[in-house]
């Protein structure tokens, strides 16, 4: 019995150890200190490599670095030719003509043609594909009809002729050139997609790459993979990095630890207020703007109190944005000065759009109290009781809601009672769309580098994202003008945006609170990384270790 026990124990222990110590070594692999290798972390798993079906920013990050589109945003934020040799926009802004470079190749060595570009756009537009971003290209001719199933995908207004691709639009679309930089709209090879069928993009081996790197070692669920230089990329000679190792690190604190242990070259510190404060003074900390904003939606359709302009103005005036940002986010975001986020895009004069349009939001407690009293008297329904809804997906949301509740209740005393409602993200979205809320903390992430990505939100009273269903004629007129008459006149368009921002503040239809940024610890010897506020958040094409 004694021996039997010992043997069992021994076998079990050995089996357990053998199971754990896989091929890579028993007690950890030695860190690859190769100069030409970068080490990066991803906060969530890759979900898919099927570019038409990517819905999350981290899969998009992988796609953006492994697939190339016609254009690519450079360090200054301007779209410059990538697969394209040149591009031309017609005077009416309705036709884009792009010429491809010659001799382009996929990572498998086959030729990359204009037809691959056309196919990718058709595939996105085709409702059979089931892409969630088909609406992105709704300004392309026939895109809407194709989505509705009235026309086949081949009717899409994107045509190839030899080395040239022509895009026909239904309306001038100033942001269109940015779509040509998106990894999610990168070319796809029809014969390859057909060959892989339902398995297309489910592992790194079931995709071919047109970008600076090709992905290897991703089996669909594993948390470690790598990017290897793609020798068939047209600009391969300027790609200095041979390999980028990736690992999925879900816990943001862990990522920081790995950075400090020298195991990864970059770690975000924006997850919580404390994390940000602990690391913001680190020499390696770098902030980049993110095209996202947080604002309060006021339900102006159903809530009798929030219908009152004075009450809304009072709430806006009682919002100490700077302090709120400091307390709730620890400074990991910026206090909002406009609906549009900071650092999104520069105006024709080279000024940051947000600085140009900012209407002058301020904090004034006395004024707020006065307006609130007047407003309450006008409504004449007694004490104001409202809910404040937010989702619980980030530590920052909860403290934001806690702070706002406390700030408003202490400013307006017994006249106001706020109940917090913290729900899962999907629930909040459902409530928002159903108009089932009073005040809601909404996060909006822009889709492209143009003010319209924010201003179109409230283009009409019933547009999908005007959750508060407010009607602001001045605002709506200004945005309409910007989208039509001034579409090809940048300076006038910016003026329209400014008018709209002012109208939004005067009527206090929403309450902008944060403009987002991302702060990360970045290894000082890694250079050439391009961070975009929208689209590809981290472009490693020309990144290298010094």
């Amino acid at each position: 019995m004694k021996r039997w026990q010992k043997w069992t124990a021994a076998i079990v222990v050995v089996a357990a150890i053998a199971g754990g110590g896989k091929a890579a070594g028993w007690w950890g692999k030695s860190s690859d200190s190769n100069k030409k290798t970068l080490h990066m972390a991803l906060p969530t798993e890759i979900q898919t490599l099927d570019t038409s079906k990517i819905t999350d920013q981290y899969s998009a990050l992988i796609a953006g670095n492994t697939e190339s589109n016609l254009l690519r945003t450079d360090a200054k934020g301007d779209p410059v030719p990538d697969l394209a040799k040149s591009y031309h926009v017609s005077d009416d802004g309705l036709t884009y003509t792009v010429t491809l470079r010659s001799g382009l190749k996929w990572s498998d060595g086959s030729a990359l043609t204009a037809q691959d570009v056309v196919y990718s756009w058709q595939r996105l537009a085709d409702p059979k594909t089931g892409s969630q971003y088909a609406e992105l290209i709704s300004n392309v001719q026939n895109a809407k009809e194709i989505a509705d199933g009235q026309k086949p995908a081949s009717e899409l207004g994107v045509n190839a002729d030899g080395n040239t691709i022509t895009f026909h639009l239904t309306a001038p679309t100033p942001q269109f050139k940015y779509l040509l930089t998106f990894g999610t709209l990168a070319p796809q090879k029809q014969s390859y997609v057909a060959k892989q069928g339902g398995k297309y993009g489910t592992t790194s081996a079931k995709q071919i790459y047109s970008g600076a790197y090709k992905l290897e070692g991703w089996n669909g669920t594993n948390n470690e993979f790598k990017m290897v230089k793609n020798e068939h990329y047209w600009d391969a000679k300027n790609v200095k990095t041979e390999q980028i190792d990736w690992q999925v690190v879900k816990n943001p604190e862990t990522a920081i630890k790995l950075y400090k242990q020298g195991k990864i070259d970059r770690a975000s510190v924006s997850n919580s207020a404390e994390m940000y404060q602990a690391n913001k003074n680190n020499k390696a900390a770098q902030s980049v703007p993110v095209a996202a904003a947080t604002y309060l939606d006021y339900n102006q359709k159903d809530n009798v109190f929030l219908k009152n302009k004075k009450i809304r103005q009072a709430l806006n005036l009682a919002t100490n944005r700077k302090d709120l940002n400091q307390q709730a986010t620890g400074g990991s975001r910026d206090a909002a000065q406009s609906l549009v986020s900071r650092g999104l895009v520069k105006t024709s004069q080279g000024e940051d759009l947000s600085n140009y349009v900012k209407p002058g939001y301020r904090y004034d407690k006395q004024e707020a109290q006065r307006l609130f009293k007047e407003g309450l008297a006008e409504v004449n329904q007694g004490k104001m009781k409202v809910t404040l809804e937010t989702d619980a997906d980030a530590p920052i949301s909860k403290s934001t809601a806690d702070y706002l509740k406390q700030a408003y209740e202490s400013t307006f005393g017994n006249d106001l009672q706020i109940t917090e409602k913290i729900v899962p993200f999907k629930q909040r979205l459902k409530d928002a769309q159903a108009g089932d809320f009073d005040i809601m903390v909404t996060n909006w992430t822009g889709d492209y580098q143009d003010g319209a990505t924010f201003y179109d939100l409230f283009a009409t009273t019933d547009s999908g994202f005007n959750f508060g269903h407010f009607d602001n004629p001045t605002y709506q007129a200004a945005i309409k003008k910007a989208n039509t008459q001034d579409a090809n006149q940048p300076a006038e368009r910016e003026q329209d945006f400014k008018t709209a921002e002012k109208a939004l503040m005067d009527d206090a239809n929403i309450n902008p609170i944060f403009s987002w940024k991302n702060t990360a610890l970045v290894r000082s010897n890694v250079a050439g990384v391009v961070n975009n506020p929208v689209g590809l958040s981290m472009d490693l094409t020309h990144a290298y270790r010094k």
Partner: protein
Amino acid sequence: MAASQDFTLVGIQNEAATETINKPALTFWQSVWHRLKKNKLAVLSLYFLIAIGIFALGSTAVLSQNAANQFNTNQASKYKNLPPKSGLPIPYWNGTGKEAGAVDRTDLYEARDVSQKFILGTDNLGRSLAKRITVGLRISLFVALAATFIDLLFGVTYGLVSGWFGGWIDTVMQRIIEIISAIPTLVVVTLLALLFGSGIGSIILAIAMTNWVAMARQVRNQTLTLKERDFVLAAKTLGSSGPKIAYRHLVPNMAGTIIVQVMMTIPAAIMFEAVLSAINLGVKAPTASLGTLIADSQSMLEYYPYQILLPAFVLVFVSLAFILLGDGLRDAFDPKMLDE
């Protein structure tokens, strides 16, 4: 060398004394208490739980939920993340701590010119942690007790019905239990919590709906044994109705089993509440339970560890006390220990 010098015959001094029975006659509950007292840990746990109970109940009078949620928005930066300060020169409990990112421990109360003493420190918005833990404890206990109460009502009834009627009713009811216990509790609880939305009520319901199974099983088994016993048969022959027998004879006779089961359900409920909080399905902010306090301060462990350790300790110790007391009670109810 006479043996009589080494030993004396004591004999029976007083014949009458041998006739008296020394052990006082104890009622069932007295004897349980008598046996429980021998288990020092269980008694300690009992006193601890009584103290916690009184503290939680008593605190409702002095400390409202709102008071624990409120903070001064204008001075949040002055009061936030203050370490625990006892007012005594106890290391790590004297108001010194590291600001996030700082290297040295400093007296943060002095640095920020705070004259108040927060014995358990403050959270990231400057709210007293002592107050929040008190309210959190109250809510966690309430959730656990309410869920357990539902378990008790439903589980006991279910078990009684199943055991008493037997036959196909029993078979069907046992199959239902088998099915329910085949789904991992976490899955059931998350799905139910998602379905009912967040809020204390739905959490209670979600926890209760998974925990009653164990109770129902125990009660059924007891019923099966008890219903063959003479006193039940007698009551039956005398024409007592089913519910009456259940109420008069069955339940009192299985009180021990039920109480022990309750003692095991409460900590399970407390812990499940914490797990729910960890996947963002906990009680609504700004009010926090112990679980949400722990889950929300996960990101603080690196910077302000006391914010997560304190509520975690409270949760663990309350659960511990319930389990220890449950153990003690089980032994005390155990007929095998009757003669001790």
